[in-house]
């Protein structure tokens, strides 16, 4: 859904009492909106009694947190060593070529290991896992996104 300050405030409120609540709050915001809008920095900082710089630092430190809204689908092809040994580099490049010009439909994000290293190469599409990937299967997945 599109960013909504009132909804964001409700989420912050629901999690702020946890010890070390920053990550749980940011995860919940991203789950709801797909990203963390700059508008969230101030209310999160206030709720946790931290500076805006600190919260901004947290958001930018962690690779998971997006600062902009992603496409309708998010594809993460594993780039770590076990997948490299089964040709992941070529898949990553291929996906980049295929995704070009489809920003609204598909966002590519790197990931370093999905724990599927014995069925490499691996990828995650919108939370679903795929192992023993081939270029053909990858193409089919991407077709499903950009069609």
């Amino acid at each position, binding site marked *: 859904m599109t960013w909504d300050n009132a909804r964001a405030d409700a989420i912050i409120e629901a999690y702020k009492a946890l010890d070390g609540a920053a990550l749980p709050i940011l995860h919940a915001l991203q789950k709801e909106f797909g990203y963390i809008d700059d508008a969230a920095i101030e209310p999160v900082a206030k709720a946790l009694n931290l500076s805006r710089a600190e919260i901004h630092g*947290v958001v930018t430190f*962690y690779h998971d947190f997006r600062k902009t809204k992603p496409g309708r689908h998010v594809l993460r092809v594993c780039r770590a*060593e076990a997948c490299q*040994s089964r040709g992941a580099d070529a898949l990553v490049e291929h996906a980049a070529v295929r995704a070009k010009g489809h920003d609204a439909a598909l966002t590519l994000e790197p990931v*370093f290991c999905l*724990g599927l*290293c014995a069925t490499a190469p691996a990828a*995650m599409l919108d939370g679903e896992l795929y*192992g023993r990937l081939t270029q053909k299967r990858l193409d089919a997945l991407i077709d499903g996104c950009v069609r």
Partner: protein
Amino acid sequence: MRALRFFLPRDAGALAVGADGVARALHTTAQARGLAIELVRTGSRGLYWLEPMLELETPRGRIAFGAVEVGDIAAILDAVIADKPHAKSLGPTDAIPFLARQTRLTFKRCGVVDPLAPVAFKGLDAARRLGAQATIDAVTQSGLRGRGGAGFPTGIKWNTVRAAQGERKYIVCNADEGDSGTFADRMLMEGDPFALIEGMAIAGFAVGATKGFVYIRSEYPHAIATLDAALRIARANRQLGPDFDIEIRVGAGAYVCGEETALLESLEGRRGTVRAKPPLPAHRGLFGMPTVVNNVISLATVPWILANGAEAYRDFGMGKSRGTMPIQLAGNVKHGGLYETAFGVTLGALVDEIGGGTATGRPVRAVQVGGPLGAYFPRALFDTPFDYEAFAARDGLIGHGGIVVFDDGVDMAAQARFAMEFCAHESCGKCTPCRIGSTRGVETIDKIVAGQDRAANTALLEDLCQTLKFGSLCALGGFTPYPVLSALRHFPEYFGAGKSRQAAE
């Protein structure tokens, strides 16, 4: 006729290769034939090249089929009913050599049981009978060392936390499992979450902690869901004890948060930067309180030790590496999976005999042991026994037990470059050599490969590695030289060695 009882994993590794489709096909095909079946979804046995692996209960024990595809189901049901073999039949599960040769202690139940079927906490009962100090003594006597990578004796860590003063104490389970080539933590949390929960409850009892956190990486949504469900069951059954509770926290894609102090920073809601030691987390850890930080496998092994005795565990292994290690065979390997065995098996036996060589059928050129900070080993070192000290003596590490196999298509200079790139990408930023030197390392390797001042740049790369080794606060910067220098030393041909100087310069 009684319902046929099938077992099929719902482990992420099996789901990624189509286990849910197989489950649906089994139900619809059976229904169409009016055949009564029961399907139990389990964790994985860890024979990933055979996933999805379907098992059937028979009077002679379970028999297995793999790797099963949706299109096989009808014929498998025919074969089962006619009591005939099928092309995908693997025979009795326990007799499959990859399984039969293992010593499954930590992973005894994993892949066999429904992960959410409640189990008695026999190890916790034994701990309560023994008392807190004797529980720690048993863990110490078992010889158990941290399975997260550093290999620190678990009992000694627990003793420090028990002796430390603090208003509250914490048990933190490190389930960040960021190393490529490793998936033991994931498999255990998805296949036998109660082993981890029981291990944490024992740790809490032993050191006097009231709260536990499991920090799981966000890349493991299935493990998070299964552990969460198991936790609710254990809590409802009052299995955690009157004054201990566990909470799950999810990481956010930072490799360095597997380092224990960065993990604590992250749990406290900050950027995952590494803390200087001392103070040790055992003295001042989470929220400044005495804290045990242990890997999933370290904790999940404790129930077995308490239930079966420290001696029984200690009897396995070699030298100072006691007990068993869940070794993970990954990458370009024919029989990829999890192989739990006593320490001491050689690298060559693991790769060639147990792993069956490469999946591509080409010669094995190199293996990386212990994740992205581990060394690359050539065949010449395949006699190295799987043991903490033996790997250290060869400038390597066993880490969390992952072995990634590469065939002769590998470019070892590219692998060394990736190690530097990964360090730059994941650096917490605190130390200059790690933050900046790693990027210099990438550039220097590029120059070497391009043949630019090869000798001088090779010397520079070695220098840079020395600076990383000695100028880094943690092993991310400190150990990145392992993959880089091992590639350079054992595989110089990929860095242009042998080409004439003049030609290069």
